[in-house]
């Protein structure tokens, strides 16, 4: 079975301001997603409809990580002076499918499951692939990776209620993803036609550049941020 889009990672330096500003400018609501297993990273979730969501993440513990160990997406967001699109995450239903994808890319399923502690219920557990020895995350080079949730759509972040906020719209799923690179490059990586994921290509460096979100008002809302692979010119020193 072909993979489907699961979520989009937005790297941030302050998940509160990023989530608030995103809701304020688009009307798309968010909620508190808790923290990741590393306890370093806080999480806000933005459901987009169609079983897809944005996860906004950043460091929320000044003692948990020294500046030289900060996550790459955090450093990129810092350098950009804004949030970045750091990763695109596809979903498969079974570990067998995930294993086949990992094998096709010459890697394995990540040896450790990811975990997130939610403020409002059971924790969630997931596995990702490919994990390739000696290589960083596919995200860093602008390529999607794949996820398999422990219990598929149970407590899936795309289906949780958002905080009531004036001006909310009801998102109805994605209309398009604007990607760098070419359709051929992406098809080779995905092993399925990019059109099945509503991808468009702008020919720039690989990575995500913008998404179009359908809403109940009939309007398509575009959310555009720098891609993870984009050359960033704003210099900001670290802590």
């Amino acid at each position: 079975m072909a993979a489907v889009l699961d979520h989009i990672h937005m790297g941030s330096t302050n998940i509160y301001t990023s989530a608030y500003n995103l809701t304020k400018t688009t009307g798309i609501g968010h909620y508190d997603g808790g923290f990741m297993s590393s306890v370093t990273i806080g999480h806000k979730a933005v459901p987009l409809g169609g079983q897809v969501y944005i996860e906004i993440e950043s460091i929320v513990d000044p003692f948990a990580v020294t500046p030289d160990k900060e996550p790459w997406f955090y450093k990129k967001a810092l350098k950009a002076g804004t949030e970045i699109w750091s990763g695109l995450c596809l979903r498969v239903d079974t570990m067998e499918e995930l294993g086949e994808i990992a094998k096709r890319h010459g890697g394995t399923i990540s040896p450790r499951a990811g975990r997130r502690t939610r403020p409002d219920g059971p924790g969630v557990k997931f596995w990702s692939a490919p994990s390739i020895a000696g290589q960083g995350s596919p995200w860093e080079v602008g390529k999607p990776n794949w996820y398999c949730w422990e219990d598929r759509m149970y407590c899936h972040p795309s289906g949780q209620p958002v905080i009531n906020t004036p001006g909310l719209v009801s998102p109805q799923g994605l209309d398009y993803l604007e990607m760098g690179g070419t359709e051929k490059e992406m098809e080779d990586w995905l092993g399925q036609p990019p059109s099945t994921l509503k991808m468009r290509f702008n020919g720039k460096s690989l990575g995500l550049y913008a998404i179009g979100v359908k809403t109940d008002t009939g309007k398509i809302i575009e959310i555009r941020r720098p891609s993870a692979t984009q050359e960033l010119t704003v210099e900001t020193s670290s802590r």
Partner: protein
Amino acid sequence: MGLHIDHISLASPNIFRSADALNKETGLGYWTGEWIRDTAVHIVPLGPPGNFIEISGFVDVHTLKNMDEHKQWILDITETGDHFNGLCLGVDSMEELEAFAKHFGSKVNVPDNPDPATHFQRANGYILPMASTPSGKRSVWMKGLPNVYFYPDRTHHSSGQPVHPCEGMVRPTGIKWIEYGGTEEEMAKWLGIPNPGEVLKMKFNGKSLGLWAVCVGAEGKPDVVVRRPAASDAVPVSKFAD
């Protein structure tokens, strides 16, 4: 109500982890509270008549590049974990608050900047109107002393907001007592009232100034005691003597 406890501040190195840990330790629920710039709080309601713990900490670590005295204090007291760093009393009218301001030789702090970014705001942008005293460049919390608040409208008071559901949740029935450093005489002098122990359900342990524990009633269950070191245990109040 007259002079009463409104809320308690618990400084944390990681508000997500601390709220989760307190919840698992006590069964007390919390909700995702306000934030301002680099700081956010998770709120733990404690029951009637309207008390809560705010678990506060930095959520934008890059801003620590530009340090000031208050930020440094928070970092210093949270380096070794959670510490109670503030006791916030409440009164029922602006007149009472002004009387406290006069007693403190200060003025009432009324946040009236129209820019929402200068206020603690909730995830949906709501800003809870409040006034406090004393007003000054250096918070009295750093000296281990309480300040006083007045809310013109308590409709959306932090103590009354729904918490995230959790397993084994207890229903808090209000503060039964708090344990404070110093002596009752010191507190009486600071507040200008004769018997703060009785009025505010305070016990005094003679240690360094600041809050050391809070006891909360729980419906159908044993009382919950939340015990953490006072901020003055990590950074002496003498550091902030005028």
